């Protein structure tokens, strides 16, 4: 009962045979070997598996690979370019927006869409914006700062020089 699907992942087209019941996250990790996308809770709660599907952030543990047929998928592996890190990656690095790093790929991909809708979000908007992503290390404060840093940088403004908080 396998079906053929074609998905574009980080700009590269892949034609694959999948069973309808295969989840998008499994295809990304196990068939395409892009293991930056993590599986955390496997129950649509933690957001570690967040990728972009046609530009919208989704939890790839709750989408069938076959639903992505003909669509574009973006994963954390596609964020950095030859010129260097994506402003969000730089923000997380500069502001200690991660500790163990498990939630980070999902946080980054969610934040990409958040900044696309709102290029200058308030702290409250950022916190609502990442409500579907759990982090058990940072207490979120430095993640919020990392996203603020990226938002300033992407607007061409000076990046905030606040000291990271250690909690």
């Amino acid at each position, binding site marked *: *009962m396998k*079906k053929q699907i074609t998905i574009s992942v980080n700009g590269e087209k892949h034609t694959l045979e999948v*069973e*309808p*019941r*295969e*989840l998008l996250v*499994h295809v990304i990790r196990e068939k395409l070997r892009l293991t930056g996308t993590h599986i955390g809770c*496997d*129950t*649509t*709660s933690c*957001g570690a598996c*967040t990728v972009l599907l046609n530009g*919208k*952030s*989704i*939890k790839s543990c*709750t*989408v*069938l690979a*076959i*639903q992505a*047929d003909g669509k574009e998928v973006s994963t954390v592996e596609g964020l950095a370019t030859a010129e260097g890190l994506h402003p969000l990656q730089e923000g997380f690095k500069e502001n200690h927006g991660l500790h163990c790093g498990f939630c980070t790929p999902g946080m980054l991909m*969610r934040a990409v*869409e*958040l900044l696309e*809708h709102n290029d200058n979000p308030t702290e409250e908007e950022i916190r*609502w*914006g990442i*409500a*579907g*992503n759990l982090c058990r290390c940072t207490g979120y404060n430095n993640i919020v700062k990392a996203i603020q840093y990226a938002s300033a940088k992407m607007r061409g403004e000076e990046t905030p020089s606040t000291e990271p908080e250690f909690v």
Partner: protein
Amino acid sequence: MIPATFDYAAPASLEEAFSLLEQHGDEAKILAGGHSLIPMMKLRFASPEFLIDINNIPGLAHIKEEDGYLKIGALAREADLEHSELIRSKYPIFMDATKLIADPQVRNMGTVGGNIAHGDAANDHPAVMMALRAEVVISSAEGQRTVPIDEFFYGFYMTAVQPNEILTEIRIPVPGAGTGNAYHKMERKVGDYATAGVAVQLTLDGDGVCTYAGIGLTNVNPVPLRAARSEEVLVGHKLDEERIELAGQYASEDCNPSTDLRGDEEYKRAMVKVLTKRMINKAIERAKS
């Protein structure tokens, strides 16, 4: 967790979808956003033999006003509501509700139609649709029928939608002047189901007399509940503190919450009362502005 084996098709028209439904009967399930269905399939609470993905069917993703109705197509996502200028400017109750439904990623997939068609009293849109007196358009190979929201929910996971039918649209009468609405649910954390939730829509005439009241309750009854006695105590009167208190009291008496991890029955009744009063006051405030 991986769902049990099933077969899948993504038809390009409603006609094709109906013929697949005809062929597979109640072994088939409709896939829209999939954010209730796929988790259930992963947990093996549901194991349909066939999924009919309706996402490739054009003409189902609209959110528009037409012929005196706000029409929400079966494929309109929660995120589409959030980002719709029409909804932002004219239907604040949906802005209240969508913000509290799951999280942004889920709202990018989950549909309003699916939230209702799932038939779960813990979902948020059923109570909102009761407050707004929505109608549900259900289509099949035989044609279309329209079911008032009060007659839509049969029981736990059971609705008026039959195995050969698809929910295709929700219609909400465009509210007249002097109308305000509001929704809030108490949740323990983001993405949780409601401990209790209350949706209110009110219309006030020039003298401040209430000419319409719709009140729906979330997750405090086996099926989504209209707080009918609360509505009756408001309509035809100026809304003073005493009437609002009574409306809250009736809602808390008429619901039927069950004790669970979110609280015991008495607590939930108390929360229904508080939320009903608050949402009435918020709706009045919005009706006047």
